[in-house]
Structures are given as C-alpha cells and as structure tokens.
C-alpha cells in the first residue's frame, strides 16, 4: 500500500479508537439503564418525545454527572493525541519516499509536540481575533448578534470574524505541512519562512481551495447527520458503517488538501536558493533523517 493509503487508514483507525474511548463511558452508562429489556432496544431513547432519554439521564444522574469532568479532560487529551494521525497525513502528503506504517507512525509521533504547540498558538490567535471582532462590532453598534436580523454592517463583522478565523486555520495547515516536509528541517523558523512565501505567491488559490473543500466537508457532514438521525433508529449497524465510510472520505479530503499545500510549498521552495531555508550548520543532504521505509 502507498504511504497515502497507510496514512488515511491509520488516521481512520486511530481516530475511531479515540472516538470509541471518548464515547465508551457514556454509551455504557446509557446501556446500563436497561434498554435491552425493551422490545425495540435503545431505539426507545429516541421515541416518546424524549421521555425515556430524559428518564435515563435522571436515573443515571449521579453517574453521568461524575463523567463530566473526566470527559472534558479526556476530550482535551484525545484532541491532542489526534494530532499524531494529523501529522501522519501531512507526512504522507509531503513525503517523496514511500513510508511504511511503522516509519509513518514513528515520524508522526516525533512531530506531535510541534503540532501541539501550533494548535495551542492557533487557538490563542483565533480566540484573540474573535474577541477583537466582537469588541469592534460593539464599538460600531451593530444591530444584533443574531444573524436572522442582522444588517449589512453586522453581517460584515460576522463574515470578517469567520473569515479571519478560517484564514488562521488555513495558515495552520500550511505550517503543519511545512513542518513535516522532507527537504526542510523541522524548525518553526524555516517552516514559517517557507509558508509565508507560499502564502504570498499562492495564498488566494489556497484559500479558495480550502473554502471549497471545507464547504464539501460541511455538506457531507450535514447530509450524513440528516441521514443518521433516522438511520440509527432503523438500521444502526448499517448506518454506523456508512458513517465510517464518510469519515474515510473526510480524511481523504484532508489528505487532498494537504497535497495542495505541499504543491504550493514545493513551488515556493523552487523559487528560492537551495538550502536557504536549512540552517547553515546542517548540510541539505543530511536534513532528511534516515528513517526505515
């Protein structure tokens, strides 16, 4: 199998496992309420105006309450661990040599702390941006935060906030790929430099690609939610299977997005002197660590 195939399946497997870990205490808690004794099993949770669902929450209140904090901590942990398969995807998109599952996993793990730092930095910048836009819109007395009745001024603030947040997220992905590129030593400074060059030359193209792919993903998730809201009650295992297929497609789309970034970074690198982004003491030829393939 190709590196990209390994990366997609690896990503799917790891995130499925992490999702399972996150969901397990809650699904076990609800299962323990005894829905298997009903003729329609836990489909009952979704019927009768939610009466049985609320009853399960009431009877298991103490248990579910005790799960809240651990779930929050687990959620943060799982979100951080999930950066490893993301790094694997970025590696697969940028690697010129074929990597087996072990090599891919090892290199992805090595990149984890950089991805984690990047994620924290991005979250901080996004929070500052959203906060700043909120303050500015209050300054300009926009009509309402409610988009149903917003005027053009308010809508432009909402669009500005979302747009800036999206640009920051998009830049984060460019940096991610730049950090794991074969030809570049994984230094933030080098990755920033290359990313800036790529964004300067192909920023608009990248943003349009991101917007199109993001729209596609949102549409797929939305359609799947509509389908799943019915499907889980009638055909749970089949619906679950289709949901997993959807996850694979979403991961594939993300890989495709990383590949677009990689091409932009490659063409940006072509326009600069060889080795310019590599620290002086490190020969360009030794920038690529000797990982087993």
């Amino acid at each position, binding site marked *: 199998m190709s590196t990209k195939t390994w990366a997609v399946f690896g*990503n799917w497997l790891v*995130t*499925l496992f*992490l*999702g*399972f870990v*996150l*969901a397990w205490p*809650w*699904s076990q808690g*609800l*299962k323990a*309420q*005894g*829905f*298997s*004794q*009903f*003729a*329609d*099993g*836990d*489909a009952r*949770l*979704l*019927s*009768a*105006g*939610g*009466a*049985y669902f*609320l*009853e*399960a929450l*009431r*009877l298991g209140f103490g248990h579910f309450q005790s799960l809240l904090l651990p779930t929050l901590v687990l*959620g943060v942990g*799982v979100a951080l661990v999930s950066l490893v398969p*993301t790094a694997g995807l970025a590696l697969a998109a940028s690697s010129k040599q074929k990597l087996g599952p072990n090599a891919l996993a090892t290199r992805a793990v090595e990149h984890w702390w950089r991805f984690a730092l990047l994620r924290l930095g991005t979250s901080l910048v996004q929070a500052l941006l959203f906060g700043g836009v909120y303050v500015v819109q209050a300054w300009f007395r926009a*009509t*309402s935060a*409610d988009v*149903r*009745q917003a005027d053009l001024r308010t809508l432009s603030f909402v669009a500005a906030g979302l747009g800036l947040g999206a640009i920051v997220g998009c830049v984060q992905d460019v940096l991610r790929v730049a950090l794991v590129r074969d030809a570049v030593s994984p230094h933030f400074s080098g990755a920033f430099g290359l990313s800036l060059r790529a964004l300067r030359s192909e920023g608009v193209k990248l943003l349009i690609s991101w917007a199109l792919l993001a729209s596609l*993903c949102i549409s797929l*998730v939305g359609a799947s*939610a509509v389908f*799943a*809201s*019915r499907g*889980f*009650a009638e055909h*749970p*295992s089949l*619906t*679950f299977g289709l*949901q*997993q297929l959807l*996850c694979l497609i*979403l991961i594939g789309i993300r890989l495709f997005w990383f590949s677009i970034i990689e091409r932009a970074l490659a063409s940006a690198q072509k326009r600069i002197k060889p080795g310019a982004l590599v620290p002086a003491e490190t020969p360009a030829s030794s920038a690529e660590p000797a990982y087993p393939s």
Partner: protein
Amino acid sequence: MLALGWAGSGQGRPLAPATPIAPATPVVPIAPVAPIAPETPMALEAPLRVASYNLDANLDVGKHTIHATGTIHFTNRSTRALTELWFHLYLNAFKNNRSLFLRNPFALGRSGRTLSSYGYIEVHKLTSPRFGTQNLWANSAKHSPADPDDTTDISVPLPAPLEPGESLELELEFTSHLPPVLERTGYAGSFHFAGQWFPKLAKLELDGTFAHFPFHPNAEFYADFGDYDVRITAPNEFVIGATGSLVETTQRKNSTTSHFSLKGAHDFAFTAWDKFERISEKVGDVHVQLLFPAWQRENALLSLSAVRQALPNFSRRFGPYPYPTLTVVHPPEAGEGAGGMEYPSLITTGGVWFEPYLGSHAIEAVTVHELGHQWFYGLLASNESEAPFLDEGVNSYAEIGVLEDLLGVGSAFRGAGLDISIAALHRVNAAWYGGDDVVAQPARGFRGFSAMGGLVYSRTATLLLTLERVFGPEKFRAALKLYAEKFRFGHPTPDDFVTTLEKELEPSFGRALRVGLFERGWVDYRVESVASRRSLADLGLFAEGGPQSSRASAASGSKDWLGRAVVYRRGNLEIPVEIALHLKSGAVLRRKWNGQGASFVVDYTGPSELASVEVDPDLKIPLDQNLLNNSKAVTPAGESRISYILTSLAHLFVSGALP
C-alpha cells in the same frame, strides 16, 4: 410565572405546519399607538366587581419612582360587616433583606439573585369621604401580623363598620420606589416594569374575612375583580405598555400621559422604556401588541407567532379570551427578571437571542405558558398563595396540549435527531420529586422553589396528563372546559376543581385525582419477571372415567408456547394500565389490568415464543415513577444504537470533521 421546566408529550403527533410569520408589520419605534376603545368584555358573564382602581401615576425614570394619587371603589360583597381593611404592599418585599421575601439567604425565590438597592411603597394618605378627612393610614398596622420585619401585609382599621352591600370610596396617595429588577418588578437602566406597584386590597371572602398573607418568595397573588382606569405619565420618548386598552394619550412638552382602562380584572401592571420597538396585529378580535428590544426582533416574532396560534387554541379549550387587547412584553436581557410573568391582558416573555439556534423552543414555551395564565389566574382567579397548583399546575397541563398543537412532538427541543417534548420535561421534573410532598398545599409550604416547580408545575401537569390519557382525552378535556366555564371570572378552590372534574368522569378517576393531589400520590409499574417455554404434553397419572392410566410421553406433546409475566404496582395510586406481550413472530398482544392489588400475572399460550412484556407501552401513565423498569425481555436485545451513535459523534469530533 414560569418555572424552569416545561414539558411535552410522549404521544407522537405530526408536526404542525409552521405558520409563516405575517409579512412584517412595520416596526414603529416610540410612536404612539392609536387608542383602542375599551370594549365590553367578550365574555358572556361579567365578574362581580369588588375593588376598582382609578389612579394617576407619574413615573420618574431617573429616580425610578412612581408617584400616584387616585381612588379605590370598594364594595362589601361579603355577608358580614367589615371593621378593617387589609392591604398588600407587595413592593415592600424588596424593602430590606429582613422581609419575608428576602430574608432567607439560601432561598432567594425564583431568580436566586440578590438586590443592589431596595424598593418599597410609601403610603402618604388614605382617606374616605365617609370618614371625613381622617387619614386612615395613620392607624394602619406597622408590620405584617406576627412578623415585625415584614411590611407586605397591612391592616387598616375602619372608624365605623362597613355593612354588607355598602360601598366605600377610598382616596389614596402613595410613592412606589422600584427596586432593580429582581423578580417581576423593577428597573434595569431605563427599562421599567411596574408590577405589584400599588397598595392593593386583599381578596374579600364571602364570610367577611380577607385572604391576606405576607409576600412569600414562593407565592404569587390573589385579588378581587374590579375595573382599572390608570393614567401613566412618563417622558415623551418612553414607550408605554400596560394592562388593558389605551383610551387616550395627552402629550405635553416633556411628558405624555397614557390612559389605560380594563374592565373585569384583578391586577394592573405597566412597562416603560425608551428603547422598545412595537409590532401590532389583530388576532381574531384581539389587538395584540408586542414590545421588544430591537436586537430581539426575531425572537419577539417567535412569541407573536406562538400567540397567533395559541390564543384561538386556548379559547377553544377553555372559553373565549375576554379582553379586547393583549400586550406581550419581551424585556431586555438586563431586565430578564421581569420576564415570564402574567397579568390580566399583559404577559412578559424573554429568552436569550441564541436559544432558537440550539434547537430550543423556550421562547414559544414561555409565551404559551404565560398566555395560558390569562385563563388559569386571569379568569379563574384562584388563590395563588394557598393553592398554587390551581393556576401554575393546571396551566402547565394546558400549555402541554397547546404547545404540541403548535410545535408537534419536539415542543421543547428539536435537534441532533432528538425530539424533546414539553410533556417529557414536565414528566422528568415530576419524577425527580416523586411523592416527596403534597402537591395541593400553600406555596409557603414548599421547601424551596425548585421543589415547588417540580411538584406544583410539573407533577400537577403530569398527573392531569396521565388522567387524560387513561380516562380518555375527549371526556377529560370536556370536564376541564366545564370547570373553566363554570368558574370563569370566579375564584375556584381546590375542592371546586376536584368535584367538578370527578362529577364528569368515573369514580376511579376522582380517587386517583384526589390521591395525586392531596396524598403524595405516586405509582410505579414494574415488570418483575418474564419466562417462556414450550408447553408440555400431559405426563403422569390421570383418572379418565375409571382407574388411573398413564398418559402418553412428551414426544407427542403440543407445539404451543407458554409464557408468564409478573407485573407489580408500587405506590398509592391505582391507575388502570395496559400490558403488551411481544412475541418472537413480531405480533403484539394486549392485556388490561385495572391497577388494583399489588401484582398481576399475565399468562400466555400461543404458537409463537414470548419475547418480552411491557407495561404501559403507550406511555399513558407519564406519572409512572420509573419508566425503565416497565419492560422485561426473555432474551435482552443485543444491538446498541447508542454506542454506535456516540462513537460516531466522538469519531467525527476526534477526526477534526467537527469543530
């Protein structure tokens, strides 16, 4: 007033087609509305007028005070001579932190908030031409009976008895100092909501006693019917909304006086704010006016849409709405304590702007709940302090039916593939308090407002919903309508309610209703065991018309299946229930149990194996204390949808496909 939980039904009904919001009626900011002539109430009956108020009120928006002068026309409709009058000074609940309303730091009423400054009423003068120029207030009690710290329940001795049938003209002058909005009344910035702002005569009972009480944080109000004519003077830029119809406006250089009139009511409230926007439209014969902050326009339209459908719906169920106008006030966020409250022909709603985006129908639910109070409080003016279940409980039941007609099964929440009904919310809230305390007791008897919410609002609603489903919706609704018509413009008691309903329905209904309301009634149906096996051929020795003979072996036995389930009933409520027998073939058989006795054995013989047995499969008894022990399977079902759903959601989250 609305408690935090509302509720919905387990009965799946098709979603009512959403009524489109009418083409935007032009928003008229701060413009005076055309006066609506006070019409004769549409009701066939007229209330017995006991206390009518004619007041001139001047709102000082800077000092947040109302200075008022006027008269009260009071008639002794009782059978005894009166030697004293009793006044409720509800606003004195906010006078200091030693009032009955505020003194308990652990139970600050419904909101749980504390005050930054205080509010009170100063009565300057109370005179009557009958008694010359004597200021009757000078001899008034200094505090509520047996409570030196509370001044919300004040007696005023009369210089001479007032005989039955005699009337008294009282002239009064007072100043109300509004508190910051804590609960129902007060100000927030330039927003003012004046509820319980004037000295109000306590309800005179037929035996000549006054139903007076200090203002308890759990309690609401009780008063006689009368006519209200109130002129409110406020700065020109302020939009005024009030109980009743706007008769005329008189504009001066800096201020405008708005004259409101309402016949046959028992309270008067008004609001004033310089940032209100207004929408008006006619719903049937009723002029509906909506006042709201500009930034809440869309949510206010949700309220209007709910009123448009709920007003005729309530009228069909409980008799026509009697007043020519209805004012719906959506307070700003800072004044949210004024939201979710009812006054005759005026209701307040509320809610944060993003609630609809979360799938919540809270705004519609609050609107419908408060509108329902026009009947269960407004027209059936029961004693809210002594029997809060008669207004809040019965109204919560009424709200369930109307909201489901409006919004279908997801009447409280719709989203993420899950529909939550208002009945389900009330049910779970009712089950939370179970049979902990008696439903039909005075508001002051409940140990905190959440207990009162669970028992008075939710448990009454769930009990009535249970009785409706078990004894037949048509019969039950007809009986309730009869009650609403019989006591329209009256003051029904718990006994009036129970006897009217039980007369129309069967005796077991009356028993269940009384136990549910007065005896901490509860019930839990539970399937204890279920078993299934092949039936056996006869084995052993049998006498068949002569000497005993041995019967054939099991090999030639029957191919039928046998099944047996044991169902238990716990609790003191005996309610007839159905039991469903699910067979492996997919067929479902039904059995009935009258609910009497502690247990019931269901036997089955048939061609298919018994798979599971469920008691109350249609959820006709939402009062059932534990729904999850209602079914037992011979072999529990294997596939777990919830594991699939939660894992899928978590997977999407982890893989970054969801934010």
